[in-house]
């Protein structure tokens, strides 16, 4: 059963990485922790759910709608909300994102109720038989789509002018401003990209999980651990961290039982803080 547990861990790890990517990107550039990350993931899940429920759009196809919409949402929230209200002070940003999470979660509870929603796709239970484990189509699609999105984001950050501008702002804010980069706009774009990652993650998660107003919190603790493990601001670190955490969770569950298996994640978190506080790939984006 060990190989099966490792494969399952890899599958989930890719999705965890996608959730963590947004968090690490926002931290790497803006140097803030987005406490509304879980709430925004939950909104993405609901967006994918309603597109399926009302219009019959497959969650994996909904990615082309939800991801740009999430980018716009994130951009607007930062440009005319978080950025303006915080006055540029980090502690204000933390409080604002915390407040935002409370508003979003309670708004979802009011409008969508606490009922857990799931989707059943025509291929939900179709699976590839590896002999020792069945890999369902939704999990396979989610795995490869998550990898592709990570690759696209890496390409955006390393091969485009926008990516170079984002990295410049992350490294030397004032220097970037002096060479003509619109720093405030880059902040908002980065925040938007971070939330767009959540938009994609919501579409990947919906077919294999459920959504209710608190679902985001189930994944956000994992995401924080991955960011610390991979190194704050590192895309490669987030992906590798996602795999490590996914496998740790899965193998830990197999060896220690599903309840005690969660200890492995906390142990990694503590060890990395003691032994390598900058994470595996501690450089900035």
């Amino acid at each position: 059963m060990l190989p099966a547990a490792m494969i399952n861990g890899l599958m989930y790890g890719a999705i965890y990485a996608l959730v963590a990517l947004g968090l690490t990107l926002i931290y790497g550039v803006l140097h803030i922790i987005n406490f509304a990350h879980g709430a925004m993931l939950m909104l993405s899940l609901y967006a994918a759910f309603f597109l399926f429920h009302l219009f019959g759009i497959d969650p994996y196809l909904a990615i082309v709608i939800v991801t740009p919409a999430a980018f716009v949402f994130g951009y607007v929230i930062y440009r005319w909300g978080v950025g303006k209200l915080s006055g540029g002070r980090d502690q204000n940003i933390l409080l604002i994102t915390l407040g935002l999470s409370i508003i979003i979660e309670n708004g979802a509870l009011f409008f969508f109720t606490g009922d857990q929603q799931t989707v059943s796709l025509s291929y939900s239970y179709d699976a590839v038989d590896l002999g020792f484990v069945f890999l369902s189509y939704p999990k396979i699609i989610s795995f490869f789509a998550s990898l592709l999105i990570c690759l696209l984001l890496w390409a955006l950050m390393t091969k485009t002018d926008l990516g170079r501008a984002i990295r410049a702002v992350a490294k030397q804010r004032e220097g970037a401003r002096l060479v003509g980069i619109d720093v405030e706009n880059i902040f908002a774009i980065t925040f938007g990209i971070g939330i767009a990652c959540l938009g994609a993650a919501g579409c990947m998660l919906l077919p294999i999980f459920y959504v209710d107003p608190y679902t985001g919190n189930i994944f956000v603790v994992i995401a924080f651990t991955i960011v610390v493990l991979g190194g704050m601001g590192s895309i490669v670190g987030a992906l590798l961290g996602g795999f490590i955490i996914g496998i740790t969770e899965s193998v830990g569950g197999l060896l220690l039982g599903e309840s005690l298996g969660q200890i492995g994640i906390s142990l990694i978190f503590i060890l990395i803080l003691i032994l390598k506080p900058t994470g595996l790939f501690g450089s900035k984006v």
Partner: protein
Amino acid sequence: MSKIIPHLGGSRRRFIRNAGATVALASTGLSMPHIAQAAGAVKIGLIHPATGWAAYPAAQLRYGAQMAIADINAAGGIKSMGGAQIEALLGDSQTKPEIGAAEVEKMNEAGVHALQGCYQSAVGLAASAAAAKYNIPFSVDVGVSDKLVGRGLSNVFRMADGYGRIARDASAYLGEINAAAGSPAKTVVIVHEESEFGTGTAKLLTPALAERGLTVVDTIKHANPTRNFDNIALRIKSAKPDIIMPINYPGEYVLLAKTLRQQRVDFMTSFSVLGGGFNFKFIDDMPEIAENMIDVNHWYDPRSASGQAMRKRTEADGKYFTFEVYCAYMSIMFLADGFERAGSTDKDAVNAALASSTLEVDFMPYDKTEMVNGQNMGSRAVAIQAQNGDCQVVAPSAYASSKAVFPRA
């Protein structure tokens, strides 16, 4: 505690009524507390996890309780108290025991006369203990730990069953269903969540199943929440049980059911005990997976006209008729009956009245209420099965609306 629900222009009416009572007091010399009690509203605090992962069942519980309160008030309130109306005070435990206990303190300061809650056993234990300090009558609407009523607290009551009686009945029902099919099932795997509810129920089931000739070959505990059930499904698959017995909350219940299907786990039936996710919504959402699954749970009596009427009314409001709705309704009726017979809000009198309750609840498959140490001995859970997109009672035979399909089709 969050807010007090206003009702029927209550404040103005109460003012006039209280003012009248004060005038009467001055002219007759009667004691103030008695008059004030006769004229004032009866406040019942509802403590449920309105926010957090259990927000949905909490909303269902509130809905059922408020439906009962509206019905009682519309029928003239507590008649022995001059038609006193019932007011609901809403509290949010946020799924945390310490918050549940804090809500009791706030409600006590707000002058609550009785309390009801709390869905999670762990929260119910903390909240009812806090209520015991003030001797406030406390009715457990949903909460299956037998510790809730086993601590010798004279203010705590439960109309529905606890896990001790449910484990016993579930084993008996499974034994009957298995025997009727020629006893093809020999082995069981129990999958339970990690808190008092799942752990306590699982412990009781193992010996009870052995008495019915069923061997528990593995007991698997999981966290709340669990994101990935693949390992558990593979572990179950390697144990090759005839019966899978989940004991968990809604999210994990549904995820486990989906994963068992994805991993092609073969078994005769899923026979859950207090399966949080087994309800009409689950059957609507995933009819193929739900078909022929069995659950032993609190359930209404489908043969009763009042049960059917309540179901229609609930569905007309756009809600699913889950067990939380009628358990909360029943619990409020029980408290109201206590106030009615006590004729006041005096805590000792109400607790004594509740302890001697003989209330008959016709929409549940219950005998006449008989409280022993706070537990209603007239209650019983039933076995229900998803059949052709609906839910049928399959055991005990006295309440069955259909014959069990076992092994599953």
